[in-house]
């Protein structure tokens, strides 16, 4: 099934996240990832939700989300018209002999090493889901101890923005 990215503006209240997560589970929708943070307006948060499903599911998700009073606006972001990124921190096991090879790979991916110990390196990477996956794949051979990912965030290209009022979407 195809993945769809929804950008959802919500009231920045306590309990909103659980309402949205609850809606997904009780309507039987699958969330691939969900990232949330406050917007330029401190009263509004923006969620980027990646949904697994066909067109029917995505339409239902949007309509049901729209029914929540806390949801202000929903927009499906098309791949061709938006940029998306994910941030991941990957902790890799190292020895004196593998450390430099890992550093080289990190450099090729334009990732950063943000922590080092005698037997670990922690790599920070941001990029598309594919890029993160590719780095993960390259680092597997050294033994990945831990991964943490933010989930995808996405924004429209160019002048387009999602505003809180229905009328003034550009």
């Amino acid at each position, binding site marked *: 099934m195809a993945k769809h990215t929804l950008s959802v503006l*919500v*009231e920045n209240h*306590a*309990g909103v996240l*659980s*309402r949205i997560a*609850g809606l997904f589970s*009780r309507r039987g929708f699958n969330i691939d990832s969900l990232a949330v943070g406050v917007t330029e307006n401190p009263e509004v948060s923006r969620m980027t939700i990646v949904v697994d499903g066909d067109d*029917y599911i995505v*339409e*239902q998700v949007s*309509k*049901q989300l*729209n*029914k*929540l*009073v*806390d*949801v*202000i*606006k929903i927009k499906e972001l098309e791949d061709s018209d938006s940029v998306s990124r994910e941030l991941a921190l990957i902790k890799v096991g190292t020895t004196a002999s593998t450390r430099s090879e890992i550093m080289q790979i990190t450099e090729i991916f334009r990732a950063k090493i943000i922590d080092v110990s005698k037997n670990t390196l922690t790599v920070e990477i941001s990029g598309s889901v594919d890029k993160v996956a590719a780095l993960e794949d390259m680092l597997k051979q050294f033994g990945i101890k831990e991964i943490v990912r933010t989930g995808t965030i996405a924004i429209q290209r160019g002048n387009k923005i999602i505003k*809180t*009022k*229905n009328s003034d979407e550009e």
Partner: protein
Amino acid sequence: MKLSGAQAIVKALELEGVEVVFGYPGAAICPFYDALMESNINHILTRHEQGAAHAASGYARTTGRVGVCVATSGPGATNLITGIADAYMDSIPLVAITGQVNSELIGRDVFQEADITGATDPFCKHNYLVKNTKDLPRVLKEAFYIASTGRPGPVLIDVPIDVQTREINFEYPESVDIKGYKPNFKGHSLQIKKIAEAIEKAKRPVICAGGGVINSDASQQLFELSQKCGIPVVTTLMGIGAVPYDYELNLGMVGTYGVYTANYAVNNADLLIIIGARVADRAISNPQQIAKKKKIVHIDIDPAEIGKNIEVAIPVVGDVKQVLEEVVNISRKGDTDDWVKTIQREKSEHAPKLDSRSGTGFVNPKYLLSVLTELLGDDDIVTTEVGQNQIWAANYLGVRKPRTFISSGGLGTMGYGFPAAVGAKIGSPDCKVVCVEGDGSFQMNMQELGTIKQNKLGIKVILFNNSRLGMVRELQKSKYCGRYFQVFLEDNPDFIKLFDAYGFKGRRIDDNSQVEDALKEMLSDEGAYLLECRIDPEESTL
């Protein structure tokens, strides 16, 4: 004006025009009760919080106003949940106010603490946990607005006890502005034109009317459309009363437990106009097949209902009344005369044959309901429980007006009808209120006899007693090879004595020849009354 939070809630209720609240006090809601004592708002003390929620629902459905129920924290609040869920499924405007433990103690599992906003999220149109007293006026204003506009539904407000006692300068907002809540009332005019075109082209059109017609008070418009364009009407359970039962183009209830002609019409139509109905499984069990063979029009205020259960050719999002007004204005009758004739023929060929024989030792519930139809006035109200009694009433009671047939549709809540009758009688004291019961469902909320007694409510109870959970028994008969299990209520109490304990009259009948006289006696009595009817356990639902 300096007011405590509790006084602010009461003041807000007064400003919203609330005349009655249904509730049950407890420690965490005591400040509210203390403030309510000073108000002219009537409080009906039910015997269980679930009764309060159902009574508020019965009040809301019969009067068209927002029903208000109140309970304390913890078990008080959780006891409301079934009533809230019921109102959510049937789109009934409710505002539920619950007390909550001190806001600083929330999360520490203190005495009578329950996360009621979390618990009711799936069944609420919206809910609030109020942390600041100054938010109360806005929250109350929003709650009534959200509950009663768009697709109506329940809204819960959870108020910690310290929020009720703290003082604020009370100012009630004049209007609401909720960024995420802007219901759309006016239908798209292009879509409405398409409906008119479809109606004119259709040879075999049918309207399926749901509870949305009643919620938006659109019965008149529906009737006009049906008459003007020669379109037969079927109703869902929630749509009963949308058109009078004896209107020649009313075919009755559709669906699994519906009338033959109604299902025949839906299956053979070339245009199906669904109005304020959500195409639930009990009404339309095979939506994919239905949609293949005909054009579907769907009018609903809730965009999420459109396309959810059935593929729609012409969707219109808007208030049913507003949309229908426009549709009636621009629609012209198609060539439907043959279709109407066919339908009329099917209707008379499949008219129910009522068994009114004497000497069987039983009362035929279907016959009794048809007699009751003749004895009730247009505005009299009937509530039902859930089970065989509900389907008998839906199919054999003639309902003339909207808001006079009250039954739990979506959730199918046993124990709904009796407390709902309490709310109905409070809201319409001059109407007769009859509650159709089964012996199983009555015992789910029979504690409300006390409420009826205390408030001197002349509610008439018709109890169909077959000493069985009749509908489950029927299901076990047809689907489980007659392996009957846990459906026998052989040791039922003496219901006549039970009513007598509260000082109510009653009569037990077991023959069809007694029906008319007994019903007349019941309806002419001033007080609450029990008419207990012995029913054949083999009596089928349909």
